C-alpha cells in the first residue's frame, strides 16, 4: 500500500499554485501546493455535509490497489462549480488531481476531476473572492 502511494507520489506534479479557499475543515492537514494525479475506479461518492467524499481504487505499477479518499466542500458549495449528487457512480473510470495530506496517507482534496467522457470539473471548493463562479448550470 505504502509502495503504491510512493509511486503515486513520484508521479505527482508539484506546483506552487494558489489554492482555492478552504471553507470548513482547514488547510493544516494538507501539503499545500503539492498535486497528485491519480487514475482509478470510483468506489463511492458521498454527497453530504460537512464534506463530499470520493473514494477511488488506484492500481499502482506493482499491481497493488490503494484506496484513496478525496474530499470536496459541502454540496451547496460545489454545486455552482458543477458537482452533482450523480456526478460519480461506482465503477466509473476517472482521473483526479488532489492536494494530498502531509502525513502520507492516501487522502487529499479535489483540485480537478476528469470523467470517463472527458468532462472536466474544477476544484471542489469555492472560487476565491473576486472570481465569479462559472456560468450557472
Amino acid at each position: 500500500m505504502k509502495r503504491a502511494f510512493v509511486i503515486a507520489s513520484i508521479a505527482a506534479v508539484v506546483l506552487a499554485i494558489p489554492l482555492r479557499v478552504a471553507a470548513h475543515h482547514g488547510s493544516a492537514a494538507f501539503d499545500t501546493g503539492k498535486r497528485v494525479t491519480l487514475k482509478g475506479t470510483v468506489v463511492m461518492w458521498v454527497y453530504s455535509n460537512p464534506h463530499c467524499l470520493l473514494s477511488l481504487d488506484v492500481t499502482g505499477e506493482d499491481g497493488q490497489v490503494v484506496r484513496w479518499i478525496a474530499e470536496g466542500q459541502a454540496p451547496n458549495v460545489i454545486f455552482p462549480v458543477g458537482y452533482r449528487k450523480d456526478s460519480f457512480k461506482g465503477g466509473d473510470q476517472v482521473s483526479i488531481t488532489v492536494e494530498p495530506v502531509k502525513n502520507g496517507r492516501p487522502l487529499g482534496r479535489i483540485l480537478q476531476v476528469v470523467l470517463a467522457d472527458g468532462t472536466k470539473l474544477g476544484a471542489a471548493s469555492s472560487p476565491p473572492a473576486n472570481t465569479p463562479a462559472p456560468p450557472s448550470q
Partner: protein
Amino acid sequence: MKMLTGVLVAIVGLCAAGDTFAQNTSPGGWLTPQWDKPPITAANRKPAPRRSLAGMWGPADGPGAGTQAQGVPAKPNNGKPENQLPYTPYGLELYRSHKALEGFDAVLPSEDNDPRNRCEPLGMPRENHYNVRLTQIFQDDYKVAILYHYDNRWRVIWTDGRQLPKVVEGGVDIGGELRERRFFGYSVGRWVDDYTFEVQTVGTMPDDRVWLDSTGRPISEQVRVTETFRRVDYDTLIWSETIDDPKVYTRPFETMRLPMRLHDPRTDIMEYYCSPSEQENYNKLFGNAASGKGAP
C-alpha cells in the same frame, strides 16, 4: 391622470424587475443561484428603493467572498502585525485556548475544539462570518428578519422603537426584569437615512459557547455589535460590522465591509447544515486519518 401615472410607474417597475432576473432560468422552475452577474455600471445602475433591504442577497464578489475562512475579512488571521487584534490579557488567554482549523495557528482536523464542529449554533456575530452565501432579508413595519444560509438560522431586528436591553450580570435587563442570554442576542435597528440601516445587538452568549470567527478569535457576552446596511443602489448592499467587547478587546474595531448583490428572489437555496452523524462519518472516513489517527 394620477391613476394613469401610477399604472405607468407600476408597469415600468415590473419591467425593471423582469430585466433584473430575466437571464435566470432552470429546468422545472427550481432556479439555481446565478453568480455570473454582469457588474453594476452607470448604464445598468438603478436607484435604491427608500428604506428597504428586502431581497435575496449574495456576496457581490462571488460565492467564495463570504466564506471568511481566514477570519473576519477586515482583519484576516494571517500573522501579519497589522491584522493583530487588540486583545486584553484575558482575550489573549482565551484565543490561545481555542484550537481552530483555520487561520495562522490552525490545528489538524479532529484536534480542534471549535463549537461549530459539535453543531453548536454559531450565534452573533459569528453567523455573519461563516460562509455567508445567499442571505434573505424580509421586513415589515416592525422588524427586519435575516435568514442565513448556514444551518437555516434566522434573527429578528426590531424597528418598532423598542429599547436595546442593558447587559447585566447573568443576562440582560429588560424593564427591570432579568432575561436570558441568546445565541443571536437582542437586536434593534433604525434608519439613519433613507438608505442606511443601523443595527445594535447585545445580550449574546458567553465566551465558552461562541467564537468570533473560524480562526478561534474569541468574543464574550459583553460584546456590542454594530451593523450598518447601506443600500447604495437597487442591486447593491454594503454590510458592515464593528464590534466593541471590552472584556476581550481593548478597543472597538471593524470586522467586515461586505458588498452584497441582489439575486433573483425565486432562487432555490440548497441546505447547508451541521449534522452530528454526518460529521462523525466524515471524521471516520477522512478527518481522523488526515490527522494521523488510527491505523494507516
